[in-house]
């Protein structure tokens, strides 16, 4: 059941990634070069809809959140390192798989690299666990918890921010 559910969810996810046009190298790197806003529109739309839905469902008691622990060192250093790899490969793990499905075979080399990198990380983990991963840890906290502000106020602010960005993108001279 678990596996079937994962597969079906993945098929929908991959379908939408392709339909949204985010599986192209030029869109990915174009976003990082700040020339193309397709990725930005796609991601922020997903987050906007998702955050409202997730918190409605949580407030109704239907679901639980599953937050990842905060480690400022790990997330900023790891995030930056990821960004470097993302710029060279042109894909993140999810879109690399999707790109392969779209016939962009070169993404396959990236997936191969990710497998090697994952093995490498497993070897490095014992030393990272006691260093970088401990820098600035604050546990599994959400932004509303950290700031002590009600979550709907935060969602409202993020929603306004995303909508303002969409508005500026659509009326600006450069359309994505």
């Amino acid at each position: 059941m678990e596996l079937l559910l994962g597969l079906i969810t993945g098929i929908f996810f991959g379908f939408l990634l392709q339909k949204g046009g985010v599986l192209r190298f030029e869109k990915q790197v174009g976003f990082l070069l700040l020339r193309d806003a397709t990725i930005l529109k796609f991601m922020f739309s997903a987050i906007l809809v998702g955050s409202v839905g997730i918190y409605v469902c949580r407030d109704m008691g239907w679901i639980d959140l599953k937050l990842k622990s905060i480690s400022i060192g790990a997330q900023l250093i790891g995030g930056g390192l990821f960004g470097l790899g993302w710029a060279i490969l042109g894909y993140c793990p999810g879109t690399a798989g999707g790109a392969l499905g779209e016939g962009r075979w070169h993404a396959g080399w990236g997936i191969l690299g990710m497998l090697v990198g994952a093995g490498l990380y497993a070897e490095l983990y014992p030393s990272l666990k006691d260093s970088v991963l401990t820098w600035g840890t604050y546990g599994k906290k959400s932004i509303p918890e950290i700031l002590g502000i009600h979550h709907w106020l935060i969602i409202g602010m993020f929603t306004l921010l995303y909508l303002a960005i969409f508005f500026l993108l659509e009326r600006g001279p450069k359309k994505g």
Partner: protein
Amino acid sequence: MNWFRKPWSPYIAGGLVGLLAITSVVISTQLLAKPKYLGTSTTMVRLAGLAESQVASDHVSSNEYFQSKKIKVDWQMMLVVGIVIGAFLAAIASQEFKSETVPTLWKARFGPKWHVRALGAFLGGILAILGARLAGGCPSGHGLSGMMQLAGSGLLAMVGFMAGGILAANCIYRKGGN
């Protein structure tokens, strides 16, 4: 069925990913008694562990990180398989399936040789996954799922992804393309 054949606005496709994420969490909570949020990068760890265990199973079973991630075929690995299938189906539907070994923008900067692109993609993949595992997630797990849940870790990781990516891309590709 015209909509099926055309590319969609990224707003629509993205918004539907948001709905998919919510649906996935609600359904998995009901059926599996645990919430499944979208994410992909741990699958690379499990796949690497499965591959390594073919040649050195003792090494994998004694590795702390592999053990913490439970090396097996799971929901997320099937999600990644599904992404490949779903993207393929959509590409066929919109007649956008395109065999590509070197992307245009890469060609403009590094030339048309496929093995140069292969090496670049391979090295990029290594760096990307090292970073993602260090950060504890990728743009799906941290970016989409984390930001949807207003996770502090998600926001921090997004700042890292964007800062690293924008800086690196501008250093690497500025000379080419345009």
